[in-house]
């Protein structure tokens, strides 16, 4: 089944079976954001602890399909220790991989495209296959959109 192997790479299944950074953080001082995929029952809770400009801790809660959970797990590992700016760049690059462009121009914008390509996605590359199964893209991006809410809150307070 080439289709399925493409979607469910080993790394994806690994993160699903052993999700990283599961748990909660005390709120405050950390920020808590919730996301739902109303079509299907995926739920994500993202806790971010921000000190100055840096994401010092991340925890993930909630339940959902292998794509949403593994994406959340990989995301948590990728952003821990990064700055908010770097996390946002990672979000854009990830969404770009999912064929999502935040603005209509981004798709054509050579500079933005180059910036997205420059970001190292690491393990997240394993989710590349999701772009070919459009109905699952929302699963993959749920945690990233939820993270963005949490970061917005953190920045608003700073």
């Amino acid at each position, binding site marked *: 089944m080439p*289709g399925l192997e493409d979607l469910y790479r080993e790394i994806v299944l690994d993160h699903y079976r052993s999700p990283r950074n599961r748990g909660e953080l005390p709120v405050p001082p950390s920020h808590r954001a919730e996301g739902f995929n109303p079509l*299907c*029952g995926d739920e994500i809770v993202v806790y971010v602890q921000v000190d100055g400009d840096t994401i010092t801790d991340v925890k993930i809660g909630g339940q*959902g399909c*292998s*794509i949403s959970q593994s994406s959340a797990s990989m995301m948590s590992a990728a952003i821990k220790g990064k700055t908010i700016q770097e996390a946002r760049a990672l979000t854009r690059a990830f969404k770009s991989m999912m064929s999502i462009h935040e603005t209509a121009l981004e798709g054509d914008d050579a500079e933005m495209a180059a910036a997205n390509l420059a970001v190292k996605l690491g393990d997240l590359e394993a989710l590349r296959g999701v772009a070919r199964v459009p109905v699952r893209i929302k699963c993959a991006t749920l945690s990233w959109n939820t993270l963005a809410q949490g970061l917005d809150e953190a920045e608003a307070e700073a």
Partner: protein
Amino acid sequence: MTLDVSAIKKDFPLLERDFNGKPLVYLDSAATSQKPRAVIDAMSDYYENYNANTHRGVFGIAEQATNAMEGAREKVRSFINAPSINEIIFTRNATESINLVAHSWGRANLRAGDVVVLTELEHHSNIVPWQQIREERGIELRYIPVTDSGHLDLDDLAATVDGAKLVSISAMSNVLGTVTPVRHIADIAHAAGALVCVDACQFVPHLPCDVIALGADFVAFSAHKMCGPTGVGVLWGHEALLDAMPAFLGGGGMIRDVTLQGFKPAELPWKFEAGTPAIAEIIGLGAAVDYLSAIGMPAVRQHEVELAAYTLRTLKGRFGDGIKIYGPSEASERGAVFSFGFGDLHPHDISQVLDEHGVCVRAGHHCAKPLMRKLGIGATARASLYLYNDESDVDALADALAAAADFFGL
């Protein structure tokens, strides 16, 4: 099997197509049913040969269109054993039908503190409109609970219904398949002075329906779940009730007269049909009624009871505790709608693998989040069967589930 399903499958163009070299195993009829050639042709026939607006023209094809549409109305009346065609209102779908009751009957009859009784297994279409009325008017909503076995808990029914103005319940759960005891509940509701509204969306396509025998005051259902097209649904109600209700949507077609000062609503059924109707769709619904009537609803029901029994046997037999099937374990107490959990696989992932095998099931909360919460789950996979499914479809489902177990190393 009661029905000759291989012959029936040939009536449905989509089921004759090849997807990736094999026919589709379509197990999502609870979401929408496939359409027989006769329904598709009836709609094309209208558009190709006598397309005109109804009730508004004197020329030949306008008359023909009007007759076809009103003819469909009579077919629906007969199909559900309603006393009068004045009681058959065409809406967009069951959701709109229930909204019509909530906003037209509801606004005229419900005050702050009045009680409307629902159940925990309702579809959002039979919960949200009442919540909207609650926001607006301060009515009280009570819910008949559902048991672990998927039945309604009727222990406190009399108390729950005491003082209620309306009881609104599903005749068959789109999640659990439970066929609810509508008549029994209706008798108790009526004794308490309450009216009864029935969400028959899953019921009318799968069981013989007699609205009077059901004990209902309002019945809502959609064409697209009963081999008809999307875009049209039905509200049936007692003529006296509908007569007393204020008009719902305002516009052309539902008036007798309009002056600058005001309007007089039309008589039934057109009082509740504003604007140009979904004419082709209504004609399509008539053709769907013809199709189902020719097969006979008792035979459809019998077929599904047999198929439900086979499904329960097969899935339990092959997977034992590896599969959790929600709803009644007795085939005769349910429709052939099966929500299930499979190991610790998320429904999304289950349906992804099944899709690879050409098996179509649904994943999610099925527009019944309160029920999901009561069951303690976020989502289920759901396989739902209809008259064009047979044992080979159930076997294909089981095989695909086994493949999923294999792939995810269950």
